[in-house]
């Protein structure tokens, strides 16, 4: 049997959507028994939500006020202790998981497979490299713990309806005081979350200013869509960093992705490969974004956005 530990991401007492996706990935491993670990101050609600994910056998709840807000240096020694007896330790390819999992792997002396997009066996996985320009099939030497991060855009979240037992456990690991949380600034928004939204409207450098970027927001609101941005738009200050889509931003898989005034650099396309339908609006008919677009429209975004709105 493969005993798989999934490290739960959560904030503000809510389980992150990435957990159900990690569980899906875990269940794709043959003969899997899936345990979810929740490290939290209280964690009752988070653990209960994890226990409802279909396919989860057990939830381990480790209560410690030091675990929130999440700091990799504080979580890693606890996760490494919990990992004893598990064949795999999985976390999401979100900034939470990317920060934490390699630290866990190093403490375990274990290799890590980053950004798993498909499971071929208990030790063989597919993952993107070179900004998605190549897909590598990697195989881990059997017989030792394997750490992996799960490319969340590649997996549908496991459904609900489960009723796993929640066990409160204690771990005996010395925790460092050398790393301290200061603050987090997250723009409050009523829009859908970029990472889980069914529809995303993204704007690029062509918007030209923060004021003009409101055109993207307005269209998104009309469609009940999340807002995204290219790196150029974020660098220029038109949109905040958490909206960046691409190799160094978010990797997303919406039903509909609309790229407006975005050229389609490979680093941007990496983030939208799994979108069901891509729409591109660009005044340059030669823009590379049209190579991947299901629907392309050549023209000036400043006249086309209002025209689209009038058709809705």
């Amino acid at each position, binding site marked *: 049997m493969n005993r798989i530990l999934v490290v739960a991401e959560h904030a503000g007492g809510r389980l992150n959507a990435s957990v159900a996706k990690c569980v899906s990935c875990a269940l794709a491993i043959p003969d899997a028994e899936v345990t979810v670990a929740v490290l939290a101050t209280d964690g009752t609600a988070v653990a209960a939500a994890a226990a409802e994910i279909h396919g989860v056998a057990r939830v381990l709840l480790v209560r410690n006020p030091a675990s929130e807000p999440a700091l*990799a240096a504080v979580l890693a020694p606890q996760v490494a202790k919990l990992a004893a007896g598990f064949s795999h330790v999985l976390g999401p390819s979100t900034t939470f998981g990317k920060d934490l999992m390699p630290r866990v792997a190093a403490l375990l002396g274990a290799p890590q*497979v980053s950004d798993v997009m498909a499971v071929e066996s208990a030790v063989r996985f597919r993952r993107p490299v070179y900004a998605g*320009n190549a897909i590598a*099939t990697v195989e881990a030497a059997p017989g030792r713990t394997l750490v992996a991060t799960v490319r969340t855009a590649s997996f549908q979240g496991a459904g609900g309806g489960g009723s796993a037992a929640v066990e409160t456990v204690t771990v005996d690991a010395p925790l*460092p005081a050398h790393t301290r949380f200061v*603050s987090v600034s997250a723009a409050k928004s009523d829009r859908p979350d970029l990472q889980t939204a069914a529809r995303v409207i993204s704007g690029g450098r062509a918007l030209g200013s923060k004021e003009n970027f409101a055109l993207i927001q307005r269209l998104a609101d009309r469609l009940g869509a999340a807002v995204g941005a290219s790196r150029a738009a974020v660098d220029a200050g038109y949109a905040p960093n*958490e909206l960046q889509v691409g190799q160094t931003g978010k990797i997303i898989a919406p039903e509909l992705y609309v790229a407006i005034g975005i050229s389609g650099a490979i680093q941007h396309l990496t983030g939208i490969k799994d979108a069901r339908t891509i729409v591109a609006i660009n005044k340059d008919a030669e823009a590379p974004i049209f190579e991947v677009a299901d629907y392309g429209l*050549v023209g000036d975004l400043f006249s086309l956005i209002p025209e689209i709105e009038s058709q809705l």
Partner: protein
Amino acid sequence: MRRILVGIKRVIDYNVRVRVRPDGSGVVTDGVKMSINPFDEIALEEALRIRERGGADEVLAVALGPDDAQQQLRTALAMGADRAILVKAGEPVEPLAVARALLKLVERETPALVILGKQAIDDDCSQVGQMLAALWDRPQATFASRVEIAGERAQVTREVDAGLETIEVDLPAVITTDLRLNEPRYVKLPDIMKAKKKPLDVTDLAALGVEAEPMLKVLKYEPPPQRQKGVMVKSAAELVAALRQKGLV
């Protein structure tokens, strides 16, 4: 001597359209432009700025890789690094072994700060900085977009999914860079000449006492599935009609 150690990886330049070799054994590298990993260039720039502000005395650039990585170290020296070390390794080395090699150098060089890129744009692993911090039992501040050093502490703003997070770490610590941390300087010709005289030491994994026993094997590389080119529509009305038909709006 207050020192900053910076990691420099030789990778295919980010402007190159990477292609998989027909036999699936890797990607095409013949005649392809190689550069410093863009995130590492940012790491070096940050170290240089800290030194220029008086926060450090020496910037040490370290590369792990083939002999040719000396070119990237020379570029790092031309940008302003004081000294460089190449740890020679033939095959690509796994992140954990890279972290172990860096730890050996860290123990020898006792830097106040290690700044690495948040990921290398070839294997896209994003592991080494976190692994080094774990092995060294020191803080990590990953995906940094702002670094402020005050005495024996650093305040680092990190680009996280929720927005921007600020943490405080005691030094020594490992920082990994995100793209918005800074814009690296251009190398000037006289600096390239000067860099030729700066010390570049060459060692290897065995001399450092690091075993690079592989734990992961890449079986094959494949090109990604290509998306089909779709249709061009003539107007906003046609676009909305098409999306409506598919139930997307």
